[in-house]
C-alpha cells in the first residue's frame, strides 16, 4: 500500500483530537515535485531546500509539541491511576477502611477499564511517533531522489534525537501499566480465551481499542514489502496471532464531528 494512502487511513482512524497532528505528507510530496520540476540553478536549489527544510522543521515542531504535551498528560494520569487503584484497594478492599466487595468489584472494574484504555492511548502515541517518523523518512527519500541532493541522511539523524521520536518514557509508562494490571488483576486460569476469540469479533465505536487494532493491522500492511526495497527499508512485519487480529471486524466508524 502506498504510504500516503496508508497515512491517510491512520489519520482517519486515529483519535479525533489527533487528526491534525500528523505529517502533512501530501503537501510535502507536492512540494518535492515542484522543487524537482523547477529549472533553477544551483542556488535556486539551495533556497528551495532551505524552504523545504523549514517546512519539515515546522512539522517536527508540531510533532514535538503534541508529543510532549501528551507525554506530560500521561505522566500525570499515570500517577493518578496508580493512586486511584491504591485508594480503591484501601477503601473498599478486604483490608480497607470500608471493605465492601460489591463496591470493590465495581470500582475495580472501572479502574481496570481506565487503565487498559490509558495503556492503549499511550501505545497509540508511540504509534503516532512512529508513523510520523516513517513519513519524514519517506519524504526525505523522495526529496533526495528527485533532486539528487543528500538531505536525508543527516536530516534523519537529527530527527532521531527529537523528543517526539525518543519515546522511551512513554514506553516505560506502558510497561508499568502492564505490570500494574498484572499485579492488580492477576491472570485467571482462562487460557482458552485465546481460542474463544477465534470467532469473529465486532469492534464498534471509536474507542482506543479500535484504534490500536487498526494501527496494528495497518502496520502489518505497510510493511508488507515495497517496490523500492532497499537497505533502509524495514522488513515485513512478523506478527504472531495475526489471524486473531485480522479476525477483528472493524465497523465503519460512527461519523464524528
Amino acid at each position, binding site marked *: 500500500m502506498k504510504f500516503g494512502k496508508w497515512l491517510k487511513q491512520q489519520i482517519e482512524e486515529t483519535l479525533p483530537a489527533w487528526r491534525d*497532528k500528523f505529517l502533512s505528507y501530501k503537501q510535502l510530496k507536492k512540494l518535492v515535485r515542484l522543487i524537482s520540476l523547477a529549472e533553477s540553478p544551483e542556488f535556486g536549489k539551495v533556497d528551495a531546500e532551505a524552504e523545504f527544510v523549514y517546512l519539515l522543521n515546522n512539522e517536527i515542531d508540531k510533532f514535538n509539541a503534541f508529543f510532549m504535551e501528551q507525554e506530560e498528560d500521561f505522566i500525570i494520569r499515570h500517577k493518578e491511576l496508580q493512586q486511584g487503584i491504591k485508594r480503591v484497594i484501601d477503601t473498599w478492599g478486604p483490608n480497607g477502611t470500608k471493605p465492601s466487595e460489591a463496591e470493590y468489584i465495581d470500582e475495580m472494574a472501572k479502574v481496570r477499564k481506565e487503565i487498559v484504555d490509558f495503556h492503549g492511548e499511550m501505545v497509540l502515541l508511540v504509534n503516532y511517533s512512529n508513523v510520523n517518523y516513517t513519513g519524514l523518512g519517506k519524504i526525505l527519500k523522495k526529496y533526495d531522489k528527485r533532486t539528487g541532493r543528500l538531505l536525508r541522511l543527516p536530516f534523519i539523524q537529527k530527527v532521531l534525537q527529537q523528543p517526539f521520536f525518543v519515546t522511551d518514557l512513554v514506553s516505560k509508562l506502558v510497561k508499568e501499566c502492564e505490570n500494574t494490571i498484572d499485579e492488580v488483576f492477576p491472570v485467571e486460569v482462562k487460557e482458552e480465551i485465546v481460542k474463544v476469540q477465534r470467532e469473529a469479533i465486532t469492534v464498534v465505536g471509536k474507542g482506543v481499542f479500535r484504534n490500536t487494532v487498526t494501527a496494528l493491522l495497518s502496520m502489518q500492511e505497510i510493511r508488507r514489502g515495497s517496490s523500492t526495497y532497499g537497505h533502509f527499508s524495514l522488513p515485513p512485519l512478523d506478527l504472531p496471532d495475526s489471524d486473531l487480529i485480522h479476525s477483528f471486524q472493524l465497523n465503519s466508524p460512527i461519523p464524528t464531528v
Partner: protein
Amino acid sequence: MEARPALSIQRSGASQLSNHGVSGGLSSSLPVLSTHLEETYQKFSDTQEVHAEKEMMTRPLAHTTRLPTNNGVVGHIFSSSSGFSSDIHYSSALPNEKHSRNPPFISQSPTNIAALPLSQSSNSLLPQSTIPIHCNKENSGSWCTDPDFLDFPEWADQLITGDDALASNWNELLVDNVTDMEPKTTYQVAKPCTTVPAQNQQLPSPSVESHSVVNPSSSANNAPAKPRMRWTPELHEAFVEAVNQLGGSERATPKGVLKLMKVEGLTIYHVKSHLQKYRTARYRPEPSEGSSEKKLTSMEEISSLDLKTGMGITEALRLQMEVQKRLHEQLEIQRNLQLRIEEQGRYLQMMFEKQKAGLDKLKVPSSNPENPPAPSDATNDNESPTKSQLESSQRDHVNSGTGTVNAKSMLERSPQEICGEHKAPETGDLEKAETCVSESSSQPSKRPRIEE
C-alpha cells in the same frame, strides 16, 4: 487529548496558529512555498489547507529571487525550534557537495547568508548539532529559542568579518527586525528570532528524559519565550509534593509551587500549565479518552467491544490489552530497526567520507612522488568499480562534483562496493548487520534501473 484552549501550549510552529481552527484531515500547518521568500511569510500566516493546495499548484518554484531586504529569510531558515537549524545538517551535507559552492555563496545576496556560514565552518555550529532542542515555539511571547540564538551570534560574526557588503545587509536586517516585535502574527515568528540573538545568547544543553531539569532553553532566556518543557515522572513527583505541601491542587499557586520545587530552569509558565493539567486530571478522572469518548458513559465504553462470543468484560479487556501489548511490542521493534538502519547509514557515510578524504589527499599533487602508488592504486581500485557503476547514476543526480562518487548512491549500494583491503573485514560486519536488517544482501531493486 483534550484541547487546551486556555494555554497556548499547542502552538508549536509558526504555522500552527490556525491549526486548531482548521477542520480535520491532513494537517494544515504546512505553509505554502512560494518563489518569493517574503511572500512565503504571508502564506505562513494563512496556513489554510485550501490556500496551500491552490498556491502550490499555481506557483511553481520557478526561481527564487534575491531579496536584499528580506527580513524573514535568515530568520526563518534558522528558526527551527527543534534544533533542526538547516545549517546543522547543511554543515554535514555540504561537505559532500563540491566546495565550488562556496565562492558563489559569498557573492550572493543575503538570501544566501543562510547557506554561507554553513559551508564556512561546521565547527562553530557543531556544538549545537548534538542538542535535542525541546523548545517549542510559543506565539504568545516572542519567538522561541535556541537554534536561532545559537546560530546567529557565531556565524553572524563570521559573516561580518567575511564580507562587508553582506555584513551591512545583515545589520540592516537585524535593525529592521529589532524595530517591530509584535508577537502576534505568525509572520513575526521569524523576526523575533533574529532580534533575540542580539540580546541573548544561550547554550542549550541536552535535555534528555534523564534530566529532571527543564529544557535549558528556558533557563538562560529571559525573553518572553515559552519553550516547551519535557516533564518526567521524577519532576512530576516533586511537583506533587510541592502541591501537597501547599495544601492541595486547588489551593496551591504556581508561584508557590515553583518556589518549593526549586528546580533550576523551571518557569512559572511551566508550572502553571502543569498545574492546570493536574487539576483537570484529578477532578475529572473519567474522561481520559479524548473529547469524543467523553460522551460515552462507562457502560457504553465497556460495551464498545461488542462481543458476539458473549465474552465477559474481563475477557474483553484482556483481549484489548493483548492487542495493545502486541502493537507496542511491534512499535518498539520497528523503532529499534529504524535506529539501527540509520546508524548503519551513518557508518557507511563516515566510511565513505574517510575514503573520500583519503582520495582527496592523494589527488593533491604532493611533493613526494613516492607517495607509494600502492595506496593510490588501492583506492583507485576502490573507486573504479564503484565509479563506473555510479557514473550512470550520476546522470540522475545533480552532481556538482567533478565526478567524485555520489555519497548517496554509494550508501544505497551494498557495502561490498565500498571496499578496500583494509575495509574488507568491516564490510563483512556491515553486510551481516545489513542482512539482518534488510533481509537481503542483494542489491536493492532500484539498482538495475539506475545501472542501465
